[in-house]
């Protein structure tokens, strides 16, 4: 009846296959049980059971509205664009579960101007500088000498350590700091007074990569679980 050219026929079949595969992929990859296939890498230690939506909240509006808003923005009809698909993950997402009053180094403190030089070296105003997600670790920094950025002038009265803090700083032994002090100060443990009794660097490195916690399991505050966060 109709004379369909072989080329057009192939185009239609190809289009249909693409459509079916696309719809199937969209359906399968958005199932909660298949989240690990969508994730760009293994979740960091302690986050293994989190769902995507715990951090990646849906952006405001429908997908069509988001397209409309961003097109308007591109054409100059709207002052700001909007998030597409999901909202940007910020430090506030982390703090919803990890914020606590006893944090020794809360990120907000580093917004103060006197830290402007330090944050050129290490941006402590945001969590992901040290805890980049989807790496299957705790700390994603290459080096653990970060204390040197702020504590070069440290002076400890009645120094309780057998090797003085002054000497450690003079010798630039910055990796020794966390052999006694956990950065966020959330563990309850006895701090060693002799250098030989401090936590071995190997154990610390293993912990930062996701291993056993050498500071102990007695913590002052625990981060919220996903269930607790949902109930908040």
């Amino acid at each position, binding site marked *: 009846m109709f004379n369909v050219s072989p080329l057009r026929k192939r185009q239609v079949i190809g289009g249909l296959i693409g459509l079916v595969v696309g719809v199937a992929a969209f359906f399968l990859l958005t199932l909660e049980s298949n989240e690990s296939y969508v994730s760009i890498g293994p979740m960091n230690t302690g986050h293994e059971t989190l769902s995507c939506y715990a951090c990646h909240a849906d*952006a*405001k*509006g429908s997908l*069509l*509205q*988001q*397209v*409309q*808003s961003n*097109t*308007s923005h591109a*054409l100059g*009809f*709207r*002052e*700001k664009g*909007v998030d597409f698909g999901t909202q940007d993950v910020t430090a506030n997402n982390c*703090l919803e579960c990890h*914020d606590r*009053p*006893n944090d020794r180094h*809360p990120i*907000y*403190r580093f*917004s*103060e*101007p*006197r830290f*402007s*030089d330090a*944050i050129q070296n290490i941006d402590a*105003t945001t969590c992901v500088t040290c805890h980049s997600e989807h790496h299957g670790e705790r700390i994603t920094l290459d080096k653990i000498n970060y204390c040197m950025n*702020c*504590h070069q*002038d*440290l*002076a400890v*009265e*009645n120094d309780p350590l057998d090797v003085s803090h002054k000497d450690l700083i003079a010798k630039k032994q910055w990796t020794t700091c966390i052999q006694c002090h956990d950065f966020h100060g959330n563990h*309850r443990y006895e701090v060693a007074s002799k250098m030989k009794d401090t936590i071995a660097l190997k154990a610390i490195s293993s912990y930062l990569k996701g291993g056993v916690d050498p500071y102990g399991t007695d913590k*002052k505050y625990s981060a919220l679980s996903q269930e607790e966060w949902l109930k908040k």
Partner: protein
Amino acid sequence: MKTFYKLKFTYPLLASLIVVACGGVPEEKAELQGEENVFSVEEVLEMVSKENDVTRTLYTKAIVGKGKLQGMKFDEDWRKDKVEAGPLPALFLRGVATSIKRGPVPLGLYLGSDHPVNAANKFEGKQAELFEQIKKDQEPQFFYDDSQKLHTAMFADLASAGACVTCHNDHPQTTKSDWKLGDVMGATTWQYPKDSLTYKETVAVLNSYAKGTVDIYMEYLDEIEHFKESEKPEIGDKWPQDGKYLPTAEVFLDSVKKLSSYETMKHLVSLNKK
């Protein structure tokens, strides 16, 4: 040629217009439309800084100063499990700052000095430079922090009570032991992202500070609740000057409001004259 123009310009333009014409995600600024900015950031930071002066002086004199006379303890390690004490004034301020940061108002508050007890609180760079001027004339200093894109103000923090002087002079880690009443011991630094604020935003800034005060004071009262060895002061409407008492958070905040509200109200109602 016609087809070329249609493909390259007309169709994409029409498609874009159709997409745009259907609306989009409502703009957040809509709720602020119709509200003009009525205060400069400098005015607002001065207002909240005065509230802070009153609050800190009240806490230092009426709670820490008088409380110590009643045998109450205040310690820099007050959060530690084995320490049964309340926060020292500097840590009280840090508690307020932490609470503010947890809330939605983008206000930053910090305390520093050129001779801090904790070396980590020593001013550097621009702040150290401006603090020299503050020590001379006790006048506020304002600047724009380009790296953080924040409007910044610094206000003198004076030794307003005997407790400030004795604690700092006697502290084992002090780098200066001849402080006297009225000295500029340090400065508070305040930051806000906008150069001017609406009435609603101004009130939100003041409220976030007041909430911060209540939050840290409540934490102190909560700490007392968990004292095991020390005698617990009675919490109600009485103050340490009358004995082993502490005011409730509401009574404390009421007193702050009574002492500070005149200055703040003067600013807020001055709008009618503008």
